[in-house]
């Protein structure tokens, strides 16, 4: 067993032990933490299975050449538009964006596009944006999108170029 795995087992079991003890002795902070854990666990179980099934289908059906052509090194401005559109329609925020971005990269999308995808998935999902305007107003949301989206694209290009020059490779087999 790897050292990391051992450490993980130790802290996960001490966490569980802490929660059990909290319940036995009626320790409120422990109960609250348990409640937080369960509510987020349920929230994640609601979105993650969908996301991973779609990722699986994507890996099987979408040809590498298609991604390389539209989101790869030769893709140009259109590639960014595509990937922002894609990010806008997928629910789930960063949690879901990371595995999807990873699959896109493995299918041949270039780094700057992958980072744009992550940024866009964080800030401009359509359902969330509509929800936001109902609480904060259109002006607030419009400023946020108009400022952050160009910055996300520019910094993604800079970061992508910087990493490509250094021959950065994303870990394999996740």
């Amino acid at each position: 067993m790897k050292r990391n795995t051992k450490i993980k087992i130790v802290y996960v079991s001490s966490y569980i032990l802490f929660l059990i003890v909290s319940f036995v002795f009626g320790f409120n902070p422990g109960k609250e933490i348990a409640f937080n854990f369960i509510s987020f666990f349920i929230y994640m179980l609601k979105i993650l299975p969908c996301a991973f099934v779609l990722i699986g289908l994507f890996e099987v059906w979408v040809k590498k050449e298609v991604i390389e052509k539209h989101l790869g090194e030769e893709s140009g401005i259109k590639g960014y538009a595509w990937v922002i559109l894609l990010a806008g329609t997928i629910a789930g925020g960063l949690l879901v964006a990371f595995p999807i971005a990873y699959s896109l990269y493995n299918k041949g999308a270039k780094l700057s596009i992958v980072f744009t995808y992550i940024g866009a998935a964080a800030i401009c999902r359509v359902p969330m944006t509509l929800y936001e305007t109902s609480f904060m107003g259109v002006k607030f949301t419009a400023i946020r999108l108009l400022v952050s989206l160009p910055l996300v694209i520019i910094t993604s290009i800079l970061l992508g170029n910087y990493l490509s020059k250094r021959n950065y490779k994303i870990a394999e087999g996740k």
Partner: protein
Amino acid sequence: MYYAYTITGLVLIISFIINKQKTLKAVKIAVVKFKKIFPTFITMLILVSIILFLFPDEAISNYLGNSSKFISVLLASFIGSITLMPGFVAFPLSGILLTKGVPYMVLSAFTTTLMMVGIITFPLEKEYFGVKVTVIRNTISFFIALAVAIITGIFFGEIF
């Protein structure tokens, strides 16, 4: 939430009709990938449960509501960076804070860092992209959020 399941279900059925083998392979890939990343998700959830205990909604309201605007913006981006909340919790909370008189720029810093910067999702992000890239991306996102907050402040007349 339901539309995600409906769409996934439909796509899965169509895929199955077109090619049974490929669809089974897709489901297999989904299970394998999910299994691999699951322990990291648990790690992240443990962090979330503790952080949310330390920063409940009332505490966030207190931090954002009292003190000067600029300190509030910094506090807001700090809290937004270390916590994790789905939009359906964060925006109603921000709406309430707005009616309590918290400036737009502070709420902008809070919601933008909440969405873009993930200290809590660090274990997950690093599994896919490595420590270095994760640190760089989050740092950049933090400054983008600050820029958004400042420009929001200018447009809502809260700075000048």
